[in-house]
């Protein structure tokens, strides 16, 4: 009796699971870029990957969209090992928005968005009216209708980002991965892009630099440092003063946000260790001193 109830609970859990990452590591020439990372993500949730520069955020995302193969460990997408997917089948499940596109890129917005159809099309399939509808809807959703026939290179940073998201919408994925989607954007576009992505109602993984943005937008967070997983869970569990101080080596206080009560990080200035000769990942004794000073300062 009890075992059948267990079974029901287990299936309902795995049914709700979009992604599970089990102990992945990635080594380049014996240097561990990622070491033993495990986490899981439920369907239709938004996961933020945070951490300092060089923490392995992009590498982790690349493992997730199979651009690199982990040296160890397994990644399961909808309870299926991602290495088992065929290239096209995987691309119908997972769409990716990257930071940069090549300089030589001869396309207008509409054509760029149409690229999202690639995994859905066989060799001899043409453009149908339904495809055009899909493309136009996606462009409208990201608010670029009046720029649909402008060259991609002529769009502004925020518009480029939105065009790439429209391409991902046309790709109709179940999981959307964004590598620093808010980079180089002003705060209006940062919020706009992430709210747009959230409104799609699919599972999303995004690496985000701005901790407050990550806190406000994401359901769960994964904090990386030096290729290791430092902490994971809800924003309030991950974004603590101690953990931010340790990983980013800054002084801060964390308060509930006045609007949504998720953590709001305020930074204190003038407490950095300025010795750049030391590796930024090795906290110097001075920084330790500073951060304790910072604590007392905050308490005062």
């Amino acid at each position, binding site marked *: 009796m009890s075992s059948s109830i267990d079974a029901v609970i287990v299936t309902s859990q795995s049914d709700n699971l979009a992604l599970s990452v089990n102990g992945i590591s990635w080594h380049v020439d014996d240097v561990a870029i990622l070491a033993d990372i495990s986490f899981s993500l439920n369907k239709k949730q938004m996961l933020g990957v945070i951490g300092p520069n060089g923490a392995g955020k992009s590498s982790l995302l690349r493992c997730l*969209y199979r651009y690199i193969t982990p040296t160890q460990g397994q990644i399961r997408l909808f309870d299926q090992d991602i290495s088992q997917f065929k*290239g096209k089948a995987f*691309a119908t499940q997972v769409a990716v928005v990257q930071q940069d596109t090549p300089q*030589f890129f*001869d*396309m207008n917005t509409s*054509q760029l968005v149409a690229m999202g159809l*690639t995994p859905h099309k066989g060799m001899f399939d043409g453009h149908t009216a339904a495809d055009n509808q899909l493309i136009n809807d996606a462009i409208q959703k990201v608010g670029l209708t009046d720029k*649909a026939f402008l060259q991609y290179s002529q769009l502004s940073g925020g518009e480029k980002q939105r065009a790439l998201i429209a391409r991902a919408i046309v790709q109709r994925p179940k999981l959307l991965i964004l590598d620093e989607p808010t980079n180089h954007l002003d705060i209006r576009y940062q919020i706009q892009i992430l709210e747009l992505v959230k409104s799609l109602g699919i599972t999303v993984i995004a690496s985000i630099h701005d901790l407050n943005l990550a806190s406000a937008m994401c359901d769960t967070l994964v904090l990386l440092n030096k290729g290791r997983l430092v902490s994971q869970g809800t924003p309030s569990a991950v974004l603590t003063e101690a953990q931010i101080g340790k990983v980013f080596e800054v002084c801060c206080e964390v308060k509930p946000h006045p609007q949504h009560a998720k953590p709001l990080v305020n930074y204190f200035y003038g407490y950095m260790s300025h010795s750049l000769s030391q590796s930024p990942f090795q906290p110097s004794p001075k920084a330790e001193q500073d951060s304790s000073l910072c604590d007392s300062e905050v308490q005062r």
Partner: protein
Amino acid sequence: MSPVKDQYRYRLFLCLLSLFAALSPIAAASFGAANISFHDVIQAIGQHLSWQDNAQSSGITERIVFELRFPRIVLAFVAGAGLALAGSVLQTVTCNPLADPYLFGISSGASFGAVLVFSFLSSGLFNLTQGTAMSLGQLEWWSWQNLLLPIGAFAGASLSVLLVLSLSGLGRSSQIERMLLSGVATSFLFGSLTSLLLYFSSPQATASVLFWSLGSFAKANWTGVILPSVIVLGSLAIIVVFKRQIVALQAGDETAHTLGVNVAKLRLNMLLLCSLITAVLVASCGGIGFVGLMIPHCVRLLFPGRQPMIVTAIVGGLFMVWIDVVARCILGNQELPVGIITAAIGSVFFLFILRYRR
């Protein structure tokens, strides 16, 4: 530009292009050493099609048109189309606006392979000592003697592609300059090897190879036209079928990968396809540079973002047909190798791109 207007312009261009393409062979056939008018050409076609055997005076005209000029026009068209296509695909799959079979060293690799085979042939190793490479055309087009030269050229071209790839290290972004330099280095390497071969061969062979390497359609005949036509048409079909994937490569390796494209495999296959086209064309009409650079750029300027492969091929073909007409007529009683003309136009065009590239 609004989409409707753009569409309208594109259709108008297609109509004009097909009209021009239909008239070009007839018009181009009326230029050359023998004085044959546009009217004579149409008459000769009429005679040929209706199998009339009444002509005495125009019999020679018909022979000139059908046995000398038409094969030549077809070969020029196929060569131009093939090179433009190869250039367009190379530019897209390497994300490099300056890619071209000539600049990438593919042409010189193919030349080296062809010259190597040719010098073996003329040294009597294969017991085939007659004349130039082109005179092999008396045999059926699929006979091994006729295929030796293209196969040698393809081996050389593939070698140069692999060399450029390993020198420039594909996969890293922004390697445009790296790749161009690797292409130039490869080009020089194979150029010097070709020169070395020529240095040790007979003066007669050297002269004919030199003339051939400048690019000419003068020795075109119906047998020799078959292989290039089959290869270029086949490649065009493959490229059209894989167009979606090829265009996705333009967005960069990682993006193409996330769109379900097997990047490494597709790129290698497309580079080999380009070297096949180039090799067959080099084997049948010598080294003709810059067409693969110029034509895709012009088409792209006219129709940004469309990547119209078939249009690119047709424009390239027509361009070459008319360049060949210029080559036939510019010096009155003497022909100029087409390679000289395309290189002259192309070098100016190359500087133009470098100057105005975004």
